[in-house]
């Protein structure tokens, strides 16, 4: 009988402790689940960051390779290099898009996505024509598949004063669509093309310096959010 009471007491104590221990873990989250805890769905932070910079010359932004053909009687322009060397080029290539970077690996992937992206371009253009700068993202899965290009309005041409072209600084903003924003982190390749807008100048000036300077600075404004897939 005495051993039966002992058995009952031990059983009671063990159940009591079991109850207490169980109470301890009926919390909203379990320690074992911490690995799978993410940021809250609405979390986001607004950031600004420099993206690209570069200091180029006129000649850099009109060729996509060294070979070009002058066709028949088409208009010719002359590029004058700092060493007084000259090069005849068809005038049209100044105004045709040149793929200056064909394939830039742009791997900024992470456990986040970018939203509401706004790009700010600041260009100091020392060339005599308005300047255009275009980025196009390519699919990471299908290298031949590209998405809508990101193209701001053209940047002002240099001012002509005292027998030379004075660089002009102009700013442009581009608000990306959600689709374009998504490509920022999903794509892994960017193609960059540049060209100049045609103006009357081409009709009465045939010689241009190869080293007109162009400074480009791009800033990215956007909201970082958690990646829904993580």
């Amino acid at each position, binding site marked *: 009988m005495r051993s039966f009471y002992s058995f009952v007491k031990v059983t009671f104590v063990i159940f009591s402790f079991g109850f207490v221990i169980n109470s301890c873990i009926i919390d909203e989250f379990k320690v074992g689940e911490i690995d799978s805890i*993410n940021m809250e769905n609405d*979390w986001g932070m*607004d950031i*600004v960051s420099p993206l690209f*910079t570069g200091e180029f010359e006129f000649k850099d932004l009109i060729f996509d390779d060294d070979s070009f053909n002058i066709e028949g009687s088409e208009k010719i322009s002359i590029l004058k290099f700092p060493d007084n060397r000259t090069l005849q080029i068809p005038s049209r290539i100044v105004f045709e898009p040149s793929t200056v970077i064909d394939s830039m690996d742009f791997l900024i992937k992470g456990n986040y996505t970018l939203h509401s992206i706004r790009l700010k371009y600041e260009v100091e253009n020392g060339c005599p024509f308005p300047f255009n700068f275009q980025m196009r993202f390519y699919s990471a899965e299908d290298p031949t598949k590209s998405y809508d290009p990101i193209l701001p309005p053209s940047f002002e041409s240099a001012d002509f004063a005292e027998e030379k072209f004075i660089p002009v600084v102009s700013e442009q903003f581009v608000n990306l669509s959600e689709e374009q924003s998504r490509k920022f982190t999903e794509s892994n390749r960017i193609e960059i093309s540049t060209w100049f807008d045609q103006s009357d100048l081409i009709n009465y000036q045939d010689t241009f310096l190869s080293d007109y300077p162009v400074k480009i600075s791009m*800033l990215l*404004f956007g909201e970082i959010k958690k990646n829904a897939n993580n």
Partner: protein
Amino acid sequence: MRIIRRRTFIIILISTCIYVFKSYAQTAGALYLLPENYYSQILNPAFTGGNDSTIYVAIPVLGGGTFGNSGNFKFSDLLRKQDNGEMAVDIEYFYNLGNTKTKLTDWSAITLIYLRLPLRKGKLNFYIKDNLFATGQFKTEAIDFFNNGNYQEKYRSYNTEEGSFNGAIYREFAVGYTTKLSKRLSFGINGKVLFGMLQADLREWNYGIETSDSGDAVLLTAAGKGNLSLPFDLEIYDGRIHNVLAENIFERYLGSYQNPGLAFDVGLSYVIDELSRFALSVSDLGGIWFRHKAYNIDQNSSYDFRGFDLTNSLDNDQSGNFVDSRVIISNAKENIRNVYRPEADTSEYFMGLRPKAVLNYQYDLTDWMTLGVTNQTVFFHKNVFNSFSVSSKQKFRGFTFFENINLNKIHTVSVGGGLQWQGKFLQVFFATDNFLALYHPADQKTFTMSLGMCFLFNNQPNGRRGSFLEYLPFYERKRK
């Protein structure tokens, strides 16, 4: 008059402890009212407890231990339930709590083996215990960045400053002896051989982000120093830690005996009169010599990110300075990563434990009820952390119920307690300093929980109710 002065002195002393010193949750004070409890015997080696012939044996898993958490925030302030029912980190809510500094201390002590044997006129103690402690603090400005970003002008610059982390995991093998020096005074001492498994001490850690007015430059900075010892290999390139190869974690944890240390605990227990007793213990006096995979680490890096510079990366670049754009991006990313990779030098260093002093006074109100006060003080770096508790215990057959009111500084008051059951062959206990933590620990800023089970051998049956008094004044007077 002398009694009034003594009481005034005690009140001033207690008030000083409560008001002046910092605090974090310590073992439930009521455990110091249970000298027969095997876990209390680890806390104060002077506790003789039980009958002279009783043998205590605790084994891994059943030996239990203590877990303590103390911070100036609740986990539920950071991890919150979302509309879809999932738990998620809610930085905005946490940031809006308005703390300027975030502090957290966690610690645990797991009893793997406990053995107490009668030996001559005393008792021989042996135990193996795994210990963990970790204290971290950082300015909430660090979270500020993750909440606000750097877009708005007022949030362009951040500096975490004063960030620190100190933590260690170590195993202790203790051998000790408890004996009565006189009818009133008991003394106990434990000598401990320690083995450090993991240690990190990061001081003055400072991460900064400074954004230029126009946003065209972001200066990333990281600075700090400290020590680090892990049972894992580190991937170190150019003197910087790139990765921690945390493989076979459990096996490495069990097999880490390359960082030795020594420490000891001492305790005194004094019977004031037939109703009251006083106990004192000082534990963890010693340290560990970290010499295996131990490093001095230093961080003083910065990178001024001004965008990916494509000047020499155009496909038709003929200047001879062409740099592939993927190299430009890869280098920039590597420079950013390097800001956050500390430099590491192999080293050897000494880590002191966190010594703890405990004062306990108890008074038997009746045969079955005892009141007590306990003050626990931990010394860590130049800080003193204090926890004061008022406790009571009631005995009913094999059960002992106990309660404690704890003051971790004056603004953090918690009510806890627990119970112990002791039969002829078994002793089981549970104690907490915060009852609310039983239901929802994540909703409490501070709490400790202790529990465990111990086998008793050669234990005399409980033949009478009430406690045995070790001091018997009647017989003493008779002898005179």
